[in-house]
């Protein structure tokens, strides 16, 4: 315990002096602090269903950032530093166009300014060591040179001799005259070019970055007549990078695409001041009140205010007012959804914009169940789904990206949640099903009165007739049934209308 009293030392930084250039840097440095204009295209994770909430700590999608930057280039060779690029940049994906002299080489340095990087940058060079008297507050400074570190601890040379930093128990810290030129606050992409004349140019910089993702959240509201629904979808996009993209043109791409997750996120390591062994006479004893008392110096008390949380009613998802967003465009074999207005994508933030909206989409309410052939199935609830045909003449006809669905029903002036589920990518012309919960009123059972004969019974306790779809997981032509079956989703399916407070029965045999 004792040895760790100063193990972590926040080093004060003297940042006043301007970074100095190395003498051997021949090419002049052109700094580009921020883009004039930025476009963000967000891609979802290549893995997973695309449904469900985004985990903001672990975003598996990515984004293509396209920036327009204005540069004042000198004649001759120059190094351009693009600052403010996203921390999750995949350096190999960077493309720069519009440089008249072309790109000679692109470099991405991961040496970020930190306490450890300063100690490393000043290895063998002179720093100022300041010791503060804890009793009087008096400060004494001393010239020192860092002779080793920062891995495994820092060793300094002072006029007194050689010492280990942070091992004496005194309040001591090194101060540096300036920041070494190759250390930067954030990730930087550097490009060397050679322009024939001095000029001002606008270049386009684009790169892929990790730590982005998006999902679609469908909100369907059934009309009171039970025949149509209003379909609305949120585009939820999240940025896990520490950089913001103000007034960005934002797009989202749907469809699974190949992309290897390459996380180049930079972790600036804190300065670890390890000391020589500092075990004492008593430090190996198991129970020492004295040490505990001293150890209390280390204890970081994280206070937490107990907040009075008045539980507000969960906000009802009202049909939002924004204009219906434009239909997506085809991008090769993918779908590109544009956010109609420029929006700001905040650092470590999540944002929702309207993805699509369609009203009065007709649907068919179905009770579905899928059975294994000739298995004994006790009375089981059926799944209620709303079947939508994704066609223009059926009120829809728009590519539907995979996402989660939430279904509401109208009860007087209130809305009630009736079902939650998932949706996979649905092209135009396909059938989409929106989950509407499980029914304990419409139950399905299966028995085997004979060895190769199955008997399916569906019962309806509702005061209205229902339409049921009961599928058997078998090749369609191998099933011979007492009623004619249709093939739905590749499975032989009994489609039957079950009267109010009634039941229906099907028998079938399997043949090879």
């Amino acid at each position, binding site marked *: 315990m004792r040895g760790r009293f100063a193990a972590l030392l926040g080093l004060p930084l003297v940042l006043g002096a301007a970074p100095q250039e190395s003498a051997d840097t021949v090419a002049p440095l052109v700094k580009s602090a921020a883009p004039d204009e930025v476009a963000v295209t967000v891609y979802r994770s290549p893995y997973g269903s695309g449904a469900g909430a985004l985990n903001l700590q672990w975003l598996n999608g990515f984004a293509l950032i396209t920036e327009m930057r204005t540069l004042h280039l000198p004649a001759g060779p120059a190094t351009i530093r693009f600052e403010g690029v996203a921390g999750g940049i995949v350096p190999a994906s*960077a493309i720069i166009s519009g440089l008249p002299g072309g790109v000679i*080489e692109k470099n991405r340095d991961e040496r970020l300014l930190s306490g450890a990087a300063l100690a490393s940058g000043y290895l*063998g060079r002179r720093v100022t060591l300041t010791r503060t008297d804890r009793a009087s507050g008096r400060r004494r400074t001393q010239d020192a040179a860092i*002779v080793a570190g920062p891995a495994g601890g820092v060793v300094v040379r002072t006029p007194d001799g*050689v*010492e280990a930093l942070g091992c004496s128990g005194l309040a001591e810290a090194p101060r540096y005259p300036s920041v070494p030129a190759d250390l930067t606050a954030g990730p930087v992409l550097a490009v060397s070019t050679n322009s024939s004349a001095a000029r001002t140019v606008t270049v386009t910089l684009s790169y892929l970055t990790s730590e982005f993702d998006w999902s679609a959240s469908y909100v369907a509201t059934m009309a009171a007549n039970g025949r149509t629904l209003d379909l609305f979808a949120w585009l939820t996009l999240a940025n896990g990078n520490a950089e913001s993209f103000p007034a960005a043109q934002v797009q989202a791409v749907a469809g*699974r695409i190949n992309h290897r997750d390459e996380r180049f996120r930079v972790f600036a390591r804190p300065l670890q001041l390890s000391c*020589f062994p500092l075990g004492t006479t008593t430090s190996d004893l198991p129970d020492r009140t004295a040490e505990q008392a001293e150890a209390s110096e280390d204890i970081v008390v994280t206070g937490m205010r107990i907040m009075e949380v008045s539980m507000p009613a969960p906000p009802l998802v009202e049909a939002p007012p924004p204009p219906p967003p434009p239909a997506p465009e085809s*991008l090769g074999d993918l779908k590109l959804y544009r956010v109609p207005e420029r929006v700001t994508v905040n650092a470590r933030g999540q944002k929702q914009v309207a993805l699509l909206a369609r009203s009065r989409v007709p649907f068919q309410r179905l009770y579905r169940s899928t059975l294994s052939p000739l298995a004994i199935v006790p009375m089981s609830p059926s799944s209620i789904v709303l079947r939508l045909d994704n066609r223009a003449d059926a009120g829809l006809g728009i590519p539907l990206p995979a996402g989660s669905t939430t279904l509401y029903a109208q009860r007087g002036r209130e809305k009630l949640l009736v079902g939650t589920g998932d949706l996979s990518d649905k*092209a135009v012309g396909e059938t989409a099903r929106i989950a509407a919960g499980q029914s304990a009123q419409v139950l399905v059972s299966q028995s085997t009165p004979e060895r190769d004969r199955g008997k399916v019974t569906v019962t309806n306790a509702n005061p209205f007739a229902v339409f049921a779809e009961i599928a058997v997981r078998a090749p369609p032509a191998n099933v011979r049934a007492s009623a004619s079956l249709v093939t739905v989703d590749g499975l032989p399916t009994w489609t039957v209308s079950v009267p109010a407070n009634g039941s229906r029965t099907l028998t079938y045999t399997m043949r090879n």
Partner: protein
Amino acid sequence: MGARHWGWAALAIASSVAAQDIAPSTPATQAPSAQGDVSVTIYNNDLALVQDVRQLELGSGRVRQDFPDVSAAIRPETVTLAVPGATIVEQNFDYDLLSPTSLMEKAVGETITLVRTNPGTGAEVRERAKVLAVNGGVVLDVGGHIEVLRDDGLPVRAIFDKVPDSLRARPTLSVTLASTRNGRRPATLSYLSRQLGWVADYVALYDQAKGTIDVQGWVTLRNTTGTTFTNARTLLVAGDVASEGQPNRFGNLQPPSRPVRAAGTESASREQLGDFYLYPLPVRTTIADKQTKQVSFLDVKGATATSAYEYHNGWLATREQPASAASTLRFSSSRAGGLGDALPAGTVRVYMRDARGQAQFTGEATIPHTPQGSSIALTTGDAFDVKVQPIVVKRTALGGSRFRTDMRYVVTNARGVPVTVDVYQDGLDYSFTDTRIVAESLRSERPESNTVLWHVQVPANGSTTLTATIDTRY
């Protein structure tokens, strides 16, 4: 330059001058390097050959020479040193790095200075102490009394007179030479290093309407050795120098999608070393530690390319939901109509322009080292609008182990243009060879005994149903 810097480093690290005598600090981009004229040859599989010519001032007889600023990821067993008029007696690679712990351990038996500070008054008392042992804690002999350093928790500075010669600030190679003469001469140091490797990265801009791609190739090298190579002549070698049977840390980079469909037989007009292609960088460059560096090596405009769809179905697979066909981009690396170059292994990122003309990313694929003249099919992702639903319609037992399987494949196309989908039914044979296609609604190909392939044409916004009856065992 090398010798002067080396001398400076030695002054700062090994000598015991007082702080006032330390050379004035000159904040450079990095600490001065002791490297001389550096050449780096980088291979794909995390391997680099570093050749470093340093000008050394050597005496006559047995001399010890340090080489600081070698790669921290050096493979010491591969070091060779050539010095005119000198032969190597022994070489050591010292990992014993200077740290507070190693400093204290090396001080056992030595005398150090203690500066005790009174916490109340700030008054300092100096004492000399002999370090007796460093075993979990430091035991000292202070003027005849034995005590443990900082046993009472009060501030004590432990000041060492000097840094032991054997401790280094950075990994250092030290060599003992038998020198036959005095004087300054070049020493050529060469060694292999890990953590310095390269891959290729390609940017392919695909114009679907014109059926062309523009491809830029970049070599991407990444240095995580912990060492900066300053102003180095750099040569990249495309090829795997680990022979068969030798351990290769990354294994064979064989992507599952098999992008190379036909191996080319053309030779690229690039410098070759045996069977390896060489990519020299045009100018000397500094490869900084923790740096990713990219240099262009290929720029081709208007090569012919087409997009195609493929779907592979496993044996007896019924999909309850239609599945997207794989979207593939096909092109050639041949001189006529293709990229006209050998392609080193790496990642191809494909872009297309959206309706507003902005390039958007549409997927990526990795390729192995690919000779010129190869035909390449990159699977970049799934097609949103082109889907296949395979259905096992009927299974009929024919007696014995034989079965007849009726298959139906519903291929749908929600695009406004007709498409052709290559539908592969896999898993026909396994080890048997008597599988028969009894009936089919479209002529098939049999690229392999285990696989049957249909080229299914699907009209715009339409669907095509393919049926087939297949006799197999089991």
